[in-house]
């Protein structure tokens, strides 16, 4: 029945477009084309070859596979046509141009009078030879062409006019970005009103992008942590993560009425977005302190939730070290949107207001208006700093930037004993900061980190964000990656958490939990997939890990299955090893944390047993913070279509979150409740008529979109 009903869809027919609209659209297209060509010409005159050659040598971030074919095609034809010179011979093993007879000129003449071309007039002339080359086959470039001009317009002469290219090696990583990355030309001759959003996203429909994702943002793929058997893998090791970018991103997508991609939902970042009132340490001797509790899991009544809450030391105001901040600001054309550069200016204005007299600020712009915008300036001269910020404008191409080296140079100039030195990179995803190879960039940031200048990354806007790169740069630079989607978020990141995000009190913080097989049979770490460490990395001081800032809180959750609870997902082994552990100790496990002082090389160890006294038999006995963290985890799991997130309905999650809001002076937790309700509307529970993801009894589990895509 459904099938039959659906097949009536195919009989729906679109009406004829009005000739008026058609004409307007075609005119607009030609204007846009001319604008694009003019731009190409300008960039060619500005040393297009040189830049392309540099890119080819250095490799390029996220080049669409096969873009080399494009580049090579464009070079000879586009460039030379405009210069009216003869084409040089071009040979390459991977990219090909096929020349064959054609009758373009004749055809053009035929079309000249007609304003409307129907498909019959564009019927193919029978070519002498029709190339049918398999996409993988290496094809040879055959040139030797001459280009002529007619009536000021470039027309390619037969027989060279048919420049067909065949994609050679799909793995080819060189890019034609110089052309392809040109921002869409602003078309002034537009006849019909159009939606602004449509324009904002022009030009991202490349073949390699997944076109139906709501944006062009890139996220690192990861597989959710699975259940581990304690007797096989008793030790779990990970690096802490105080980033919150994922939550801000998820919020912005949900508020636009979309469900985020599963990989965009990083559970630990959702949980750590919220402030928790854990008790902090009393002195810098132990720079952070862990608070633990074991509560019943809200989505599984057979398991327990081990919550480890860590809070960093807050140094008293008089101990505050002077800040030496260098803003490295992306001023490429794409930043020219209300939620990008203008928001960035206001955000940094907020930050500047927080500074104290001994602090120093410098501003370096890259891309577009590149160079030092503000020489190191004392925070006492606020007017000058704010004035310089105000003068930033977005425009121009993304080329010609030496941004990052300049920023570090400025930061090092102003570095003094005891100062906190940090470069703050603000961008919408254009990491063309002067070092185009991501690996080289990472190495560079790492070497600067070791010399005492850290890096934080602030992401703005949506549609172009390379989330994975943003995360890894901040991680390497001992900083955080935050995503700023509105002014409120700017206030949270730069004002309320300003101290934590700027002043590191401990670095390379690693957590290792050893579970007691006599008490716990299975465990699962919730989130931290992208922060997993090997067991042996824990004691290896050369392995980098996350940082904790002043007053930061970090929360890690484990879902644990106690022995004999009946909640095990794995059957016991028939030939399992004999019990050798002293079951009487009653401890669930043992927590170990390693950290280094911000300027130290040697790690220190903090340990605490996870005793059975921490266990609460009812979730209502847990603190609001603990219950709220559980609600956030449940929300994130359900949102990303996790295998563990289906048991609770959106409403149950919302109730749990709502009941554990606590005082919530800033309203962050109330906002989560709203987001949960929003997600419930977008992806209704089966009981509300929605789909039930991944729980298909026919074994459709492997077809889950979260796993397939």
């Amino acid at each position, binding site marked *: 029945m459904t099938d039959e009903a659906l097949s009536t869809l195919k009989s*729906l027919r679109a009406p004829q477009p009005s000739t008026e609209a058609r004409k307007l659209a075609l005119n607009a297209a030609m204007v846009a*084309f001319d604008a694009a060509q003019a731009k190409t010409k300008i960039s060619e005159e500005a040393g297009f070859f040189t830049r392309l050659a540099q890119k080819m040598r250095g490799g390029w971030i996220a080049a669409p596979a096969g873009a080399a074919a494009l580049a090579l095609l464009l070079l000879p034809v586009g460039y030379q046509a405009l210069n009216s010179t003869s084409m040089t011979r071009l040979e390459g093993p991977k990219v090909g141009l096929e020349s064959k007879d054609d009758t373009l000129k004749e055809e053009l003449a035929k079309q000249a009078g007609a304003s409307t071309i129907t498909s019959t007039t564009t019927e193919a002339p029978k070519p002498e*030879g029709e190339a049918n080359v398999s996409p993988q086959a290496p*094809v040879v470039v055959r040139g030797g062409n001459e280009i002529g001009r007619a009536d000021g317009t470039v027309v390619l002469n037969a027989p060279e006019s048919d420049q067909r290219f065949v994609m050679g090696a799909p793995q080819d990583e060189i890019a034609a970005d110089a052309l392809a990355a040109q921002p869409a030309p602003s078309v002034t001759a537009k006849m019909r009103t159009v939606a602004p959003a449509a324009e904002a996203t022009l030009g991202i429909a490349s073949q390699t992008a997944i076109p139906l994702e709501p944006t062009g943002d890139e996220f690192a793929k990861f597989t959710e942590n699975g259940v581990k058997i304690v007797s096989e893998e008793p030790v779990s090791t990970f690096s802490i993560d105080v980033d919150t970018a994922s939550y801000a991103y998820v919020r912005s997508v949900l508020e636009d009425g979309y469900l985020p991609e599963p990989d965009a939902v990083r559970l630990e970042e959702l949980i750590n977005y919220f402030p928790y009132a854990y008790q902090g340490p009393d002195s810098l001797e132990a720079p952070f302190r862990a608070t633990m509790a074991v509560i019943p899991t809200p989505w599984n009544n057979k398991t327990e939730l081990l919550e480890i809450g860590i809070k960093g030391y807050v140094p008293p105001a008089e101990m505050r070290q002077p800040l030496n901040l260098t803003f490295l600001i992306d001023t490429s054309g794409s930043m020219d949107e209300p939620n990008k550069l203008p928001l960035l200016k206001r955000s940094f204005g907020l930050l500047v207001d927080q500074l104290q007299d001994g602090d120093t600020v410098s501003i370096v712009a890259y891309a577009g208006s590149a160079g030092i915008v503000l020489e190191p300036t004392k925070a006492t001269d606020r007017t000058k700093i704010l004035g310089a910020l105000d003068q930033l404008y977005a425009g121009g191409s993304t080329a010609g930037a030496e941004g990052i080296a300049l920023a570090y140079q400025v930061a090092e100039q102003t570095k003094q004993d005891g100062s906190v030195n940090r470069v703050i990179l603000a961008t919408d995803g254009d990491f063309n900061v002067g070092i185009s190879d991501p690996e080289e960039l990472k190495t560079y940031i790492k070497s600067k980190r070791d010399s005492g200048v850290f890096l934080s990354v602030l992401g703005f806007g949506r549609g172009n964000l390379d989330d994975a790169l943003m995360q890894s740069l901040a991680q390497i630079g001992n900083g955080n990656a935050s995503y700023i989607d509105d002014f409120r978020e700017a206030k949270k990141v730069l004002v309320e958490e300003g101290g934590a995000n700027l002043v590191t009190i401990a670095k390379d913080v690693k957590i290792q939990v050893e579970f007691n097989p006599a008490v716990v049979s299975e465990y699962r770490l919730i989130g931290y997939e992208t922060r997993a460490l090997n067991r042996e990395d824990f004691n290896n001081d050369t392995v980098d890990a996350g940082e904790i800032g002043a007053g930061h809180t970090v929360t890690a959750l484990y879902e644990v299955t106690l022995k004999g609870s009946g909640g095990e997902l794995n059957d016991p082994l028939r030939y399992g090893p004999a019990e050798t552990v002293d079951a009487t100790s009653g401890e669930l496990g043992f927590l170990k944390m390693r950290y280094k002082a911000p300027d130290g090389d040697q790690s220190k160890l903090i340990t605490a047993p996870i005793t059975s006294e921490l266990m609460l038999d009812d979730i209502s006995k847990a603190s609001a913070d603990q219950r709220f963290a559980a609600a956030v985890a449940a929300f994130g799991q359900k949102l990303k279509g996790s295998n563990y997130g289906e048991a609770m309905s959106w409403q149950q999650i919302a109730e749990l979150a709502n009941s554990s809001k606590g005082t919530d002076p800033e309203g962050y937790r109330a906002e989560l409740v709203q987001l949960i309700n929003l997600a419930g509307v977008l992806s209704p529970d089966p009981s509300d008529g929605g789909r039930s993801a991944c729980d298909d009894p026919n074994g459709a589990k492997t077809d889950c979109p979260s796993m397939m895509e």
Partner: protein
Amino acid sequence: MSGSLALSEGLVQSDINISRSRDDDLVARAKAGNREAFGLLVEKHYDFIFRTACKWTGKKSDAEDIAQEVCIKLATAIQQFDGRSAFTSWLYRVTLNMVRDMQRSTSRKSKTIDAFTLVHPEDDPGGQEEATTAHEIWERVGALPDKQREAIMLVYAEEMNHAEAAEIMGCKEATVSWHIHEAKKTLRGLL
């Protein structure tokens, strides 16, 4: 070189292939900056773009706006077409992206007073009932989650097979099948 050999072997006469090769020719020239070729290409495909947009939005005026935006976008986006799929498949995706962009933009949401303009062939007095049904089904499908709606539209309205739909959607064939399966589950109670 084997170039000439490939040429003679490749004399494929089917209309589809010729039409595809025509597109490839025009695309290559347009990319190289040939104004006429670009003009031809856009003219040739305008109706296709419009029809696609209309099927997805159900409204003529929206479809015309979208078609114009796509035409403008092609001026730059054409450089990104790399010939790995047929030009029309690529164009379908570009159009679909634009439909999504349009529908996402908030200023658009209020502008829904327009009448549904898709017509059913049996839109004569006698076939009115069926037309209404098709309209209703279209609306139900429109209310599905994005991916499910896309899968259903491509497979049922555009009569593509799952592999073709997967190419347009940029996912695996099995994923398309899964979306269809899920969509049908949702629709079962409604149709």
